[in-house]
């Protein structure tokens, strides 16, 4: 039971980072990243191979870039990998005049095919079997018990989530955040207002990609394993549902969505008494999540915590007007 709580809390942290990342891209900037999971996956893979040590040809797993780097480096490299993938895809897709829903479907196909390529190319990240035995950071430093380490990781996740949340919340309140919302509502008008739409879109996509890669790196360091099963394209759907349920365009809402959808609704079927054949509850889990999405979106399309209306107060506006006129 103690295990269950600590593992759930770590997952909550991972999903909170996930929904924050997607909320930045979709909730604020209106970019439909339907291939989101690929960014988390690349972060996890890069963090894994840079901490596993060089691959030996006779070993049981094959991968590229094998290295055993000290603690924060795999995490940093995973984050950078997410950002780099976002830079490439964003530059290729988001800077073109392509319908938004087509952009979304292209991202989805990219994620599906990325999984097929990883499975087919065993030398890349050990194919369908995936990587395992990824070392856990700090484990050798503090000499914690198994449970102690689980709880230590919960605290570590909490610190990181608060940092990312605070940073993102601050960013979204600046004029940069305002530009994001303007672009989301009407990119043509935002362009007239002097915002470089193409550049802004790529920058926010890269930021979101970096957070996604970061969450993947943290996840793989906790789990110790990572394989194509862990990042099938339907996982993106869960994160999107969480953002919708929490309230898109609201960072705290995104975290609430992360708690409600994957953690509470997603794990509910595992509380049912064991019945049927093994694997039935996993199937039911997906049906429950999909049903919950349809019902919640019908009842409350804006989400639990809708986006706050950002209205400049009259005194501040007039103060600025006075400052410029005098």
């Amino acid at each position, binding site marked *: 039971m103690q295990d269950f709580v600590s593992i759930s809390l770590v997952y909550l942290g991972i999903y909170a980072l996930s929904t924050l990342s997607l909320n930045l891209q979709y909730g604020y900037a209106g970019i*439909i990243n*339907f291939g989101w999971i690929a960014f988390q996956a690349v972060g996890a893979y890069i963090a894994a191979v840079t901490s596993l040590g060089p691959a030996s040809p006779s070993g049981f797993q094959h991968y590229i870039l094998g290295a055993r780097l000290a603690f924060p480096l795999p995490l940093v490299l995973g984050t950078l990998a997410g950002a780099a993938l976002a830079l490439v895809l964003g530059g*290729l*897709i988001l800077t*073109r*005049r*392509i*319908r*938004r*829903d*087509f952009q*979304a*479907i*292209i991202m*989805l*196909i*990219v994620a*599906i*095919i990325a999984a*097929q*390529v990883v*499975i*087919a*190319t065993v030398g890349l990240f050990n194919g369908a079997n995936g990587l395992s035995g990824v070392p856990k950071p700090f484990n050798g430093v503090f000499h914690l018990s198994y449970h102690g380490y689980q709880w230590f990781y919960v605290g570590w996740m909490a610190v990181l989530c608060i940092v990312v949340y605070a940073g993102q919340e601050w960013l979204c309140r600046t004029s940069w955040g305002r530009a994001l919302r303007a672009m989301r509502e*009407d*990119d*043509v008008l935002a362009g007239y207002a002097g915002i470089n*739409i193409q550049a802004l879109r790529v920058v926010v996509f890269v930021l979101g990609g970096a957070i996604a890669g970061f969450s993947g790196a943290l996840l793989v360091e906790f789990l110790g394993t990572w394989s194509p099963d862990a990042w099938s394209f*339907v996982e993106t*759907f869960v994160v*999107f*549902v969480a953002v*919708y349920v929490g309230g898109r365009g609201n960072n705290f809402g995104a975290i609430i969505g992360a708690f409600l959808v994957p953690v509470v609704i997603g794990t509910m079927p595992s509380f049912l008494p064991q019945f049927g*054949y093994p*694997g*039935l509850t996993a*199937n*039911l889990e*997906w*049906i429950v*999540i*999909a*049903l919950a*999405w*349809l019902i919640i*979106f*019908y009842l409350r*399309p804006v989400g639990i915590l809708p986006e706050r209306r950002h209205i400049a107060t009259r005194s501040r506006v007039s103060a600025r007007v006075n400052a410029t006129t005098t």
Partner: protein
Amino acid sequence: MNLYWEAVGFGVIAAASIGLGAMGFTLQFGLTNVLNIGYGAIMSLGGIVAYVSHSAGISIWFGLLLGGLSASAVTLIVAKTILAVYARRGAALFEMAMITFGVALIVEYAIAAITRNNTYPLTIAIEHAMSLGPLRFTKVQLILVIVAFGVFVLLDLFLHLTRLGVALRATAVDPDLARASGIATNQIVTAAWLLSGFLCGLAGGVFMVNILTISAFTGDSLLSLVIVAALMGTAGSVRGAALAALAIGIATQVVSVAGASSYDTAVAYGFLALVLLARPRTLQGGLVTDRVQITV
């Protein structure tokens, strides 16, 4: 060289299922503007129904027909109940796509729950391959290709020669103007859902006969190719979808003969990049597109 001709033959067979799916996808998408990710589940459903009826002793050809019909019925019911409700509430384009995703998950995992996550092998009599010029087909494969090509010709004639087909194309271009001209657009949309569901169900069945296995998730592996073909051929264009499917089918098989057997699907990447770089016009439509009208 012979090997490559054989690959072209396999490519044509692969194109049969991709093309059927892409024609159905593009017809519905061009008309309703709902990006229906649910067709992956619908294709699995068509295949499963064909498999079950074949196991029950029905001929596989009749089974394929049954698969198409049941997929058609499910598609229409989903569209007219679930999708229509959300469309009336003013769901945006992407939200509609998310809803079709949700429905797809329910259908797919319900099938998985009933079939206990099994992958079923299809056993049909395989005759010796016969030569057709440099290409080689078994009888079953040849029939599949002929069926797909026949469907394409019939669909094309239907869209260009019959009153219903012309009305369908008119509704796709401008639903308001079509309604004002006295076209019962509601019935047209119903017809499009039925037709696209049938084609996708048939595609799932044909895919199963081709790869000889079926599971609840078989349709997903076909879906990405189907969507790439539909986008490449311009949304709404049946001829474009058929041509793109043929190109993708042949390219994937030739690549797999050329020594990169497990990368055949990754070739779709290349096609996607081609669409992006060489034919961006097919994907254009303004940066903000939530103004596109949804007709369910």
